[in-house]
């Protein structure tokens, strides 16, 4: 009924204000429900969230790349994966490399998440959660390398207080660009 009203009016001044504002919301709600019911239409290699955790397991940065209503669930996933990292670090397997710990962490029982971890020399942990079935090891390693470079640049900011959360906008943008370019086409 709203649509008929809009189409019949050629001049925008003739619309009521609330009708005018509700048109884009109407479109937005339909598109959101569309994506919610068909999640496979999204990109194949999709990173759901990345997190940086300090050496006392304090969260320094958490960024999710899906809809905002599952932020709490992502926090929980990241928190659980910290335990797995601690286990790996305290029982060192002499055959494994000591720096790049890319592991298939928690395969979350209901929803097919893969959690990868990376531990720097300064005991800072990077966590990456992805909903992907087939991720190559090299892709994840190069993702973490770029992410480490962005993290180092953010920490070297003289206004950043070590131990507090990272609040730099340029860091968020760089992380967003790295996440968007994650996929089988990465050559670095």
């Amino acid at each position, binding site marked *: 009924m709203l649509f008929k009203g809009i189409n019949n009016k050629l001049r925008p001044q003739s619309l009521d204000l609330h009708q005018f504002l509700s048109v884009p919301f109407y479109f937005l709600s339909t598109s959101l429900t569309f994506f919610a019911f068909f999640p496979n239409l999204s990109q194949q290699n999709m990173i759901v969230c990345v997190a940086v955790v300090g050496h006392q397991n304090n969260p320094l940065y958490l960024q999710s790349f899906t809809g905002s209503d599952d932020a709490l669930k992502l926090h929980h996933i990241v928190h659980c994966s910290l335990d797995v990292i601690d286990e790996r670090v305290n029982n060192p397997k002499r055959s494994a490399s000591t720096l790049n710990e890319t592991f298939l962490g928690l395969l979350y029982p209901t929803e097919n998440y893969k959690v990868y971890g990376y531990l720097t020399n300064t005991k800072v942990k990077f966590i990456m959660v992805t909903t992907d079935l087939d991720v190559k090891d090299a892709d994840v390693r190069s993702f973490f390398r770029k992410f480490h470079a962005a993290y180092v640049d953010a920490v070297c900011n003289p206004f950043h207080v*070590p131990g507090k959360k990272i609040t730099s906008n340029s860091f968020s943008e760089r992380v967003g660009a790295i996440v968007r370019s994650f996929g089988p086409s990465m050559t670095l």
Partner: protein
Amino acid sequence: MGREVAESCIDGVIIEMVSAYASRFYSSKPDLAARRIEAIGFQVGHQLSERYTMERPRFADHLEAIKFICKDFWSELFKKQIDNLKTNHRGTFVLQDNHFRWLTRISLDPAAVANNDATSESESGADMTSMLLYFPCGIIRGALNNLGISCAVSADMTNLPACSFVIRIKA
């Protein structure tokens, strides 16, 4: 992101920072000035150690971390390595640099040194040099702290272009 700065700028900034803290900000409280300079060095060392440990495997024990400081960290900062490393295997390390880069520009006024009457001037020369050395002590402490080793660092300058840093690891 590799922008470069002339080395004389670094020398100038450090000398001016030390003299600002020692003679302008906290001129009546030299130990407070020393603590502030060391705290600045701490944060700088913290951030530098993040950057310079990026591509390397983790250190297995304290000795490897100290060796990293002596070799890679020092050569990134001062383009040379530490000349001599001594340890007593009980948590104390002495790092000796025979030609410390930031001290090469320091000249103690020879007239004041030779003159026994003006003891205050020669003392202030030595004090100013020791103020200058708090900054690299802070850098070493910040770098080791970021690698998980908490320690206390002090400097010792008996003959001038050479100086040694004593690291005491807190058990």
